[in-house]
């Protein structure tokens, strides 16, 4: 789950990472009196909000309220600004980049840092990026901090300062089950290092350990949110064919085969290993609400039998009929029985993915 900047900074603060003293507002009149200059930061989950005009400065109450009015409700790349984080403007001597991620290749964590901060790390050349895997059982050791200090060209005192940062970031990363904990820019101020921005993704599978964290679901469409609540793996796409299949890999493959024949999927819905009629019903309920022209059901029967899934489908559409046609492809265990059940409900069922895909594309009005 991706967190808003202010939530990420809360976590950082709790784990000892220095962040600017800020507060969150939802209305312009919540701005508190201030001296000097403040920064108003739109709280959205998408990157590049600075360039999109989502971050502004103000040096008087009047100006601040005007800016807040302008930012709140603004649309940034499809995300609506509902909250602003208000912080004093920081005096920045230098900007760095630092993050810890789960590294798939090494199956360990990875510390990434660069003296080129404030820009997307992807745009920094490799030789300017410090990378060290951190084993989860041993954690960050002093030699990693030393190597980082040398790489970034820091003096002894600064290395000590950034060391505290790394240990604290590791603490936040591990205790909060992060997929990613990123500080960009990590800024050097006259008072030392500070996290000027913060990005934090909590591993979805670990949320049961972090019930105190406010749920963020902005990154999902309303329909995706509904599916998540029901525990259904569902992604909304921009085509017009509603794909349901069993298994993530098979569902992806179904999308790909449709595309080969000129079709475009409007949904990715993975039934998983279930043939529970209730679950199948819920899945068809979700699909029914998506803006699609045809449903493409692709089932490979293994542990889940074709006929039980077919029965579930028929029950589901009897309970709440779909407004669009269904094209099915049924293969595997009890294939014939499954086809028969679907046929009786008026659903054409194919054996090969190719034939079914072609039919779905046709019914969807494509190619």
């Amino acid at each position: 789950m991706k967190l808003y900047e202010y939530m990420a900074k809360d976590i950082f603060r709790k784990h000892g990472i220095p962040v600017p003293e800020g507060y969150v507002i939802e209305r312009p009149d919540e701005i508190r009196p201030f001296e000097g200059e403040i920064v108003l930061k739109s709280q959205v989950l998408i990157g590049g909000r600075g360039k999109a005009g989502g971050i502004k400065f103000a040096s008087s109450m009047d100006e601040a309220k005007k800016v807040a009015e302008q930012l709140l409700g603004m649309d940034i790349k499809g995300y609506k600004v509902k909250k602003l984080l208000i912080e004093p403007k920081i005096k920045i001597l230098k900007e760095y980049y630092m993050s810890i991620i789960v590294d798939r290749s090494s199956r360990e964590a990875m510390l990434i840092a660069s003296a080129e901060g404030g820009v997307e790390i992807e745009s920094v050349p490799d030789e300017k990026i410090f990378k060290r895997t951190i084993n989860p059982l041993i954690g960050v050791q002093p030699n990693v901090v030393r190597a980082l200090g040398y790489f970034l060209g820091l003096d002894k005192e600064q290395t000590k300062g950034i060391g505290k940062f790394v240990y604290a970031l590791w603490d936040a990363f591990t205790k909060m089950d992060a997929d990613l904990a990123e500080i960009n820019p990590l800024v050097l101020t006259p008072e030392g290092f500070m996290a000027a921005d913060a990005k934090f993704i909590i591993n979805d599978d670990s949320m049961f350990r972090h019930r105190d964290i406010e749920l963020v679901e902005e990154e999902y469409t309303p329909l995706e949110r509904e599916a998540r609540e029901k525990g259904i793996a569902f992604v909304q796409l921009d085509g017009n064919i509603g794909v349901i299949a069993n298994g993530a890999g098979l569902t992806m493959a179904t999308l790909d085969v449709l595309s080969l024949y000129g079709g475009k999927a409007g949904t990715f819905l993975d039934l998983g290993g279930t043939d529970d009629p209730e679950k199948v019903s819920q899945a068809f309920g979700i699909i029914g609400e998506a803006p699609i022209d045809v449903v493409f059901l692709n089932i490979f029967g293994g542990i889940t039998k074709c006929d039980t899934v077919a029965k579930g489908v028929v029950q589901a559409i009897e309970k709440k009929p779909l407004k669009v046609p269904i094209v099915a492809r049924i293969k595997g265990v009890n294939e014939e029985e499954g086809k028969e059940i679907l046929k009786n409900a008026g659903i054409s069922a194919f054996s090969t993915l190719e034939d079914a895909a072609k039919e779905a594309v046709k019914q969807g009005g494509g190619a």
Partner: protein
Amino acid sequence: MAVLVNKDTKLLVQGITGHQGRYHTMAMKEFGTNVVAGVTPGKAGETVEGVPVFNTVQDAVDSTGANTSIVFVPAPFTMDAVLEAIDAGIELVVTITEHVPVHDAMKMVSYAKMKGARIIGPNCPGLASPGKAKVGILPNMVFKEGNVGVVSKSGTLTYEIVNSLTEAGIGQSTTVGIGGDPVTGTSFIDMLELFEKDPETERIVMVGEIGGTAEEEAAEYIKEHVTKPVYAYIAGRTAPPGKRMGHAGAIVSRGRGTAESKIKALRSVGVKVAKIPTEIAELIKEDL
């Protein structure tokens, strides 16, 4: 011979008294697997499908000599179950459970490495060597004994592909689902190494998907170390960036993990990449 499991496999089922544990104990026995014990804390003395249940893995190992384990326990307790198996000397721990926290996965994989054990999964369908043993939830009827080694990140998609191989008369030595999570105990490379060494395996099928760079790394490995013909299918060509396609690992983000990159890397080292899953059987047939 087959890789990882064979007739010497003595299987322990962790979480045997649950719904999944019970069902698959039966299915694995039907496949011919020697299921010797089950573990569910507090259920010692019961039996499931004729298999004795113990409170702890150590008790089960001491009483039955189990050397392989399959884990069905719920995600919040999976790491503990896997560590318990490793500490009791189990050499191969097949972890079926999905939604295991990724930090738990990292820890258990590191611990297994320290103790010289192998984990398959988490979030995987396990593995099957037709005619020998199955340690997993793959459907029994899709397999046929033969000489193709299959390694895959997927579940159902793998069954589909294996089934099409079987229908085409192409048997399999071992089929391994390594799981689609970001951190797994066994990688494509690990399996390529085992298949390359296995005298019974003549050809290798790799089923990948978007996310990460495991397929690209596998391509590098194939170039240097694999002499047997490799066939591949990569799912997710049309998945949009930033959207997680079911599996926790299946996401194209920050320009990494695209199907194009994987397909290109595999083709460049001579791997035949299929456009649709069932095409793999055809590609193999052409070469026979």
